[in-house]
């Protein structure tokens, strides 16, 4: 009996056909991360607090958010008692304005591993999280190290000075927001 060999050149073509559909899906998956879905509230928010001025800035950013952003989970270092106090005070004032505020404090952590984890969960199809990075107002002409990394991985990268908008064209500039 004659052994069967596939015709020359057809093996490569066969594997290409096998791989093509998943490869074609990749750009759609990436684009889907940017799709503006209509959502209904509430939206769970994870806030990464840093030390000192970073926490002050991020609480200012949150000050005008509606109650649709609930619950708000804060990630901060165990040792960062100042940030904890500022966050509790902020949420206490919110509770006086709105009826159902919660604080969930967790830590330690920095924003880069938190965001990378969120990214991985999204890529694995387990959880879709929008990553919004707001660079500190201290950064006028250069990005922080976290900023340099997350410029490529965040969904929205916000800067607060025009010089940075020029250097990093994919960033969003809304003026000074803290």
């Amino acid at each position, binding site marked *: 009996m004659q052994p069967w060999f596939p015709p020359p050149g057809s093996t490569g073509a066969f594997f290409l056909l096998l791989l093509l559909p998943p490869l074609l899906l990749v750009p759609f998956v990436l684009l889907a991360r940017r799709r503006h879905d209509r959502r209904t509230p509430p939206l769970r928010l994870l806030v990464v607090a840093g030390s000192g001025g970073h926490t002050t*800035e991020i609480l200012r950013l949150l*000050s005008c*958010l509606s109650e*649709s952003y609930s619950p708000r989970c804060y990630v901060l270092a165990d040792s960062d008692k100042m940030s904890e*106090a500022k966050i509790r005070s902020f949420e206490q004032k919110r509770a006086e304005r709105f009826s159902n505020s919660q604080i969930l404090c967790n830590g330690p952590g920095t924003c880069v591993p938190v965001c990378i984890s969120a990214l991985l969960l999204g890529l694995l199809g387990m959880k879709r999280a929008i990553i*919004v990075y707001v660079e500190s107002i*201290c950064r*006028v002409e250069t990005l922080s190290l976290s900023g340099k990394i997350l410029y490529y991985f965040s*969904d929205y990268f916000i800067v607060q000075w025009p010089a940075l908008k020029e250097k990093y064209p994919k960033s969003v500039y809304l*003026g000074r927001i803290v």
Partner: protein
Amino acid sequence: RWLRGRLWGAARSCTEGGKREPFCGEWEAVEGEPAVLSSGLSPASVPPPQIGRGALQPAPQYGPAFVRDVFRFKESLAEDLRRADLVISHAGAGSCLETLEEGKPLLVVINEKLMDNHQLELARQLHKDGHVLYCNCSTLVETLQSMDLSTLKPFPPGQPEKFALFLDKVVGFE
């Protein structure tokens, strides 16, 4: 010339514990009574300054009418800021924003020994825009002697509502 009124100073963040830190030079510059007098400040007008986390612990009393005590942390500095006519501070974002929003003249002191000195960018930009004076530890006294506070411009408030609107749009809340 004599500067009337209350001077509130924040000598912060002497972070590399053990020895006296370069930023403590600001404190030393202000602490020295001859330096204070030659800068034109009235010693009686200086309320308790804030010091940050660090090894430096200035003596509670320097002179008969100068510093009585220092503090490391308060819940809120709003009251101290309201009473001040001039604030001397490091160039941290929180310190700068709080002071400028209170409408107080601000002299920021740059810590040259801080890694990559990221505070310098903000101090430089705020100075360029005419909102603050700035100097380093070694030029503090000279700056206090020669400064003209009337050249400082008001600092417009930030607009966090723009961030809220932006976020509502991108998450799909309409």
